């Protein structure tokens, strides 16, 4: 939705390596094989599969037992509670099962613009009749001829109104069909479609027999479904046979149940496949439809998004129904391989707290990138062929100091490789200590090793640029490639993507209760591939500034000048 912001950093979740499709990836990249580390192969950010394993750090979790990051693809989710996003009431899961995944209170959204509808009084002195009014586009339920006597239990009232409307429209054509029953649940997949959903020819049968015919048809359908479902172990067959058992007796029992049983039948129908809906759907007279659409005009017809969210895919705007709010869930997350809980939110709807929350940001070193020369540069217009110097900051979230080793292929993967050079690939990052240490003075308890190199800012080879309590900055040089102008290039080729392997080694206390004293220290290590999307390469040297972001203060030419001035200086330093 938003334009990508450069520079951005993504972290590769190794979970896709486990799915056993490593072989094809290897063969594809065998031409430009680089062998930098014991990892075997540099991460290729341009590989088609990479898109699915790159995530920003914020979206990653961490499993302590597996010592590995966990992305949204390699966690299992369990629903803690259901709630309505509009009224924020918790909905018990039994209600969700019986009533469907929509709010049964007064929460509706506009069928035109999807903003929230509010119950509004139309009468004097806040009295009825009441309508559902969209305060964004001013659509109201009166547009489809519906108003309500009281401002509460709108769902029930709406169901009755639609049922009545369906019954009257159906009566004009046919005898009341069982289809009008479905209108009792206007929100269900089969509901609210009286004019569209008609059993093939109900008028041929008296009402009683219609029910029976419908029942027989459904029974046959479920028998078929059961036969299909028994093939897989999806658990569907069990619930289907339970349903079948519920209604396996004769239709007399069905009648003796009265409306309650019919309600259940409708529920059963709702759970059925959409294919059944297609069977039920009788096409209206085409001439009729054309005539209606001609009268309504283009602006009277529904757009695709409007049609898709409605259960009965209406063609015209006046056939739209208010949409009951879809429920949302709070979910806990488990590691897919060891089943440990990674995230467990509090079950209260309004609460943002978590009982368990193992996010990657508090376990793995975080990297961030900024320009060395503090003048603003247009990241969307990087000059090819000139050296761009960036500051790569590694922040340590752990309570132990870590040793970082950065590795990157000299030439980035891809058809047009950029040259990357990390001035100091091995360094130490201090521990995250108490905030008071920083408050009492930055040097008060800082690691002496780290403090030694602090504040030098020399830019010399194999020395760090700067460091603080729990962070260290090194210089990173990138030379974007000169892109050929006569070749058709993909959008991806214009972006400088630098894969960097971040490996951290540290000593931590062994987490065992029986260990006494501080002797129990063990060496731990963790490594991950990250991808820096540094920016877009400019068309050519001194190209006109199209797509210049307003935040850039300097023009392209002056940034080039800055690069040229900084370039020789660094060369002499090296």
């Amino acid at each position: 939705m938003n334009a990508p912001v450069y520079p951005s950093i993504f972290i590769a979740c190794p979970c896709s390596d486990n799915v056993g499709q490593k072989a094809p990836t290897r063969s594809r990249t065998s031409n430009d094989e680089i062998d930098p580390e014991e990892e075997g192969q540099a991460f290729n950010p341009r590989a088609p599969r990479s898109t699915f394993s790159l995530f920003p750090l914020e979206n990653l979790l961490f499993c302590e037992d597996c010592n590995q990051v966990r992305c949204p693809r390699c966690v299992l989710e369990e629903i803690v509670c259901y709630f309505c996003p509009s009224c924020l009431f918790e909905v018990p899961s039994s209600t969700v099962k019986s009533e469907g995944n929509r709010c049964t209170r007064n929460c509706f959204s506009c069928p035109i613009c999807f903003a929230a509808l509010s119950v509004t009084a139309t009468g004097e002195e806040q009295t009825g009749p009441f309508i559902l009014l969209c305060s964004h586009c001013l659509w109201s339920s009166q547009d489809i001829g519906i108003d309500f006597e009281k401002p509460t239990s709108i769902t029930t009232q709406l169901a009755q109104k639609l049922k009545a409307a369906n019954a009257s429209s159906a009566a004009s054509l046919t005898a009341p069909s069982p289809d009008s029953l479905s209108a009792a649940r206007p929100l269900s997949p089969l509901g609210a479609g009286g004019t569209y959903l008609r059993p093939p020819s109900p008028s041929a049968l008296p009402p009683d027999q219609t029910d029976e015919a419908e029942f027989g048809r459904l029974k046959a359908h479920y028998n078929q479904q059961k036969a299909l479902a028994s093939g897989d172990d999806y658990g569907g067959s069990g619930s289907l046979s339970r349903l079948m058992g519920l209604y396996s007796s004769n239709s007399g029992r069905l009648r003796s149940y009265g409306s309650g049983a019919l309600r259940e039948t409708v529920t059963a129908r709702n759970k059925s496949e959409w294919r059944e809906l297609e069977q039920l759907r009788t096409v209206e007279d085409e001439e009729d439809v054309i005539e209606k659409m001609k009268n309504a005009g283009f602006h009277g017809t529904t757009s695709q998004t409007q049609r898709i969210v409605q259960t009965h895919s209406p063609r015209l705007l006046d056939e739209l129904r208010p949409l009951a709010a879809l429920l949302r869930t709070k979910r806990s997350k488990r590691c897919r391989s060891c089943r440990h809980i990674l995230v467990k939110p509090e079950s209260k709807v309004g609460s943002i707290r978590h009982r368990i929350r193992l996010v990657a940001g508090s376990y793995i070193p975080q990297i961030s990138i900024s320009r060395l020369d503090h003048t603003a540069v247009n990241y969307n217009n990087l000059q090819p062929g000139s050296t761009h110097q960036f500051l790569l900051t590694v922040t340590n979230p752990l309570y132990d100091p870590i040793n970082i080793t950065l590795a990157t292929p000299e030439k980035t993967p891809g058809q047009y490789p950029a040259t990357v050079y990390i001035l100091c690939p091995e360094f130490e990052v201090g521990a995250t200590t108490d905030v008071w240490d920083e408050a009492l003075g930055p040097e008060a308890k800082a690691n002496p090793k780290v403090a030694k190199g602090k504040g030098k800012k020399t830019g010399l080879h194999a020395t760090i640029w700067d460091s603080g309590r729990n962070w260290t900055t090194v210089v990173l040089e990138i030379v974007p490639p000169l892109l050929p102008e006569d070749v058709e290039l993909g959008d991806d080729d214009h972006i400088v993507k630098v894969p960097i392997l971040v490996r951290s080694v540290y000593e931590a206390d062994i987490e065992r209760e029986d260990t006494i004293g501080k002797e129990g220290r063990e060496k731990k290590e963790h490594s991950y591939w990250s991808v820096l999307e540094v920016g877009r390469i400019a068309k050519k040297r001194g190209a006109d500034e199209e797509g210049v972001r307003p935040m850039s203060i300097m023009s392209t030419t002056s940034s080039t000048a800055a690069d040229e001035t900084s370039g020789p200086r660094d060369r002499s330093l090296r």
Partner: protein
Amino acid sequence: MPPKQVKGEYIETDTGNKVSRKSNILGSQNIILGGKTIIQADCTIRGDLRRAGAPGQHGNVAIAVGRYCFFARSSVLKPPGKTHRGAFSFYPMKLGDHVFIGEGAVVEAAMVGNFVHIGAGAVIGKFAIIKDCVRIEEGTVVAPHTVIPPFSRVAGRPGVVVEELPETAQESLELKQLYRVI
């Protein structure tokens, strides 16, 4: 991140609020700032639009703001008002902690929770309720009376929830660092 301002641009209060001299604050006696809140130039805060009639047990508060909030340039905070039983009245507006209001945004919400980011140019309709950990993208128009649940990313006109925010949303929406910069 805005650059460091020239000295004297802000008036600092005892609780650490920094209010721009160029901001337009009306009815300041009806405004409560929790502390460490930054109000930039050209902000309009309508504390004068308070509840009609004599001050009841709720007192005079028109706008209550939590700690570490940041109101960027030209943003507007206005308590929502409606006609109830024939009389027009404004209702108090409550903002939680760590609320960021972007440049030129207009907020008429009844309640904004903690850790809420309202992008530049966004419009929050009357009596909207925004819960904790919500990010409203730039230029979003949130319809009046909308309720936005926690951990949502809202975009579009009208603003609808387009995405759930990850568990780390609270950290990424925190504004303590921003306060230190100013």
